[in-house]
């Protein structure tokens, strides 16, 4: 029981912390490939602390509740991942969090926020089925949806599910708001929707969504690490390589529109998953 308590506390603290550090490293690397120096490593933390100390402008109470709910769901998902719980449960809780974010954006009257929320729904429509397919692949491989079963494997999952890992990479690109898919909101301002989904979240509420975003990042990268669960160094390497690929994709692609995203995401994602699943099944 105490072990569980420590695990939960560790997940609650280190989940956002790791997410924030990764985001800081992301910003430095992105700056470097653009021939800039970039911000200090702790920049995301400065941002969030500053946002927490800003004047509170609440558009409506519902939006404030939604921001809190998003953070809660995202941290519960990280905790469950650390407790090696059920994969499907984790994915659903994470999805519920995202839904709250969207609902909060819909509750404001700004057209930017509304259209951003609409696009975020389309993004979820695109990646959620793919995530479920990845989970199904894990189930076929291990015979259980529990993460503990993955850790019991003797061989890295990546060798059996290479295509599903690519699909997970696709989901990660959408989820991290990276360039061809940064439709609903992006890390920098230059897009037609200004900040889109996050337009009306401001000050402390924006800080909450930012922390929740770090949790999401940590969660998905944790999910990636499961594909090499036999060896911690292997897992770390896999995550690092995956993230480097994300930065690369972000910097060599223009932003696309949602039609392209749905076509490409579903077409490519489904095809890759099916190939992998059929291969697993036939074996």
């Amino acid at each position, binding site marked *: 029981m105490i072990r569980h308590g420590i695990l939960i506390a560790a997940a609650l603290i280190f989940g956002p912390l790791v997410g924030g550090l990764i985001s800081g490293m992301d910003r430095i690397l*992105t700056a470097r*490939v*653009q*021939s*800039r120096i970039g911000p200090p490593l702790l920049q995301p933390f400065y941002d969030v602390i500053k946002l927490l100390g800003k004047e509170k402008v609440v558009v409506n109470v519902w939006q404030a509740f939604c921001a809190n709910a998003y953070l809660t769901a995202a941290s519960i998902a990280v905790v469950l991942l650390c407790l090696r719980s059920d994969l499907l449960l984790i994915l659903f809780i994470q999805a519920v969090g995202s839904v709250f974010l969207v609902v909060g954006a819909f509750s404001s009257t700004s*057209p*930017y926020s*509304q*259209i951003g929320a*609409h696009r975020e729904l389309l993004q979820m429509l695109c990646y959620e089925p793919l995530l479920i397919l990845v989970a199904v692949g894990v189930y076929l491989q291990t015979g259980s949806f529990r993460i503990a079963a993955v850790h019991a494997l003797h061989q890295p999952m990546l060798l059996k599910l290479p295509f599903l890992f690519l699909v997970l990479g696709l989901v990660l690109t959408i989820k991290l708001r990276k*360039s*061809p898919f*940064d*439709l609903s909101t*992006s890390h*920098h*301002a*230059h*897009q*037609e929707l*200004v900040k889109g989904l996050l337009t009306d979240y401001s000050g402390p509420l924006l800080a909450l969504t930012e922390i929740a975003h770090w949790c999401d990042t940590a969660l998905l990268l944790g999910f990636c690490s499961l594909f090499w669960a036999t060896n911690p160094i292997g897992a770390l390497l896999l995550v690092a390589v995956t993230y480097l690929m994300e930065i690369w994709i972000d*910097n*060599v*692609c*223009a*932003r*696309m*529109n*949602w039609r*392209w995203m749905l076509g490409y995401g579903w077409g490519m994602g489904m095809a890759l998953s099916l190939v992998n699943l059929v291969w697993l099944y036939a074996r």
Partner: protein
Amino acid sequence: MTRTIIPFGPQHPVLPEPIHLMLTLDDEVITEAVPAFGFVHRGLEKLVEIRDFHQMIYVVERICGICSMLHAMCYCQGIEEMMGIETPPRARFLRVIWSELHRMHSHLLWLGLFADSFGFESLFMQFWKIREKILDIDEATTGNRIIVSVNVIGGVRKDLTLEQTRGILSELKSVETELKRLETTILNDYTVQNRTVGKGVLTAKQAYELGLVGPTLRASGVMQDARMLKYAAFDDIAFTPVVETDGDCYARCKVRFREVFQSIDLIRQAIGKLPNGEIAVKVKGRPDGEVTSRVEQPRGEVFYYIRANGTKHLERLRVRTPTFANVPALLTMLPGAGLSDVPVIVLSIDPCISCTER
């Protein structure tokens, strides 16, 4: 989703300038675009009443920071024509050099902003990095990065030394190699083409009938360029306008990208043929009469109408800027486009609102 009305601007990160577009959307497809102007109007044409005709050079130069050199040049050429002043050949060649440098920095700026309009941030950074080299040339030779203030009536204020012309040539060489590297990305990349090809198409007939000017017109296959009028030193310099035929955003991008190389070529020719001699003649008397003057700006042809009455203050100054001519194209292209294409299409005409409203 049903009808949404999006207020695009006056403060919007895609287009730093304040233009207000009321976009009526039907499920992310634009059905109507209504522009509202007046956020930059300063009323500077009326300043001719309190500023004399020499001081007006510096005022018209500040109509727009991106085409400033060409505004001043157009104004000076108009006054010179009115007063019958023959500018020295060296001054005319120097004007070509600085105006083409200005065109390069404007086009590089546009290429960067265009890349940003479809969310290609790293490409934006690359173009602006290259642009800094042009600005450094400007600052080293004229004293300011953007508003060069080199034109005076009767010639230019600054001269280029031999050393400086060599410096310009070597800098241009490095600009050229760096731009060549980005050519495949801006012209052949799949994601870029996906966002620009077939967006905002204007046929040659449409473009001509709407009265467009500059790269927007040339991208639709109409060969028209005010530099063909052979003002300044263009009668001694070989020049053929860059023309594309597709008439979409991609073609406009291609025209401007190729024009950067053309400008490099023109500067090389001008430096090669740079004659020795005076850079300015003394101006005596006051302007009298009326005159029109035309110059090709980065965005297209600018047109000045000047009327003077023999006093040191002009009687009337009227500027017709390229963006003013190009805005109707925007209203033709926007309805039917997707919301995500709005920035791409708006930027494809290279709008310069401070020129338009003055």
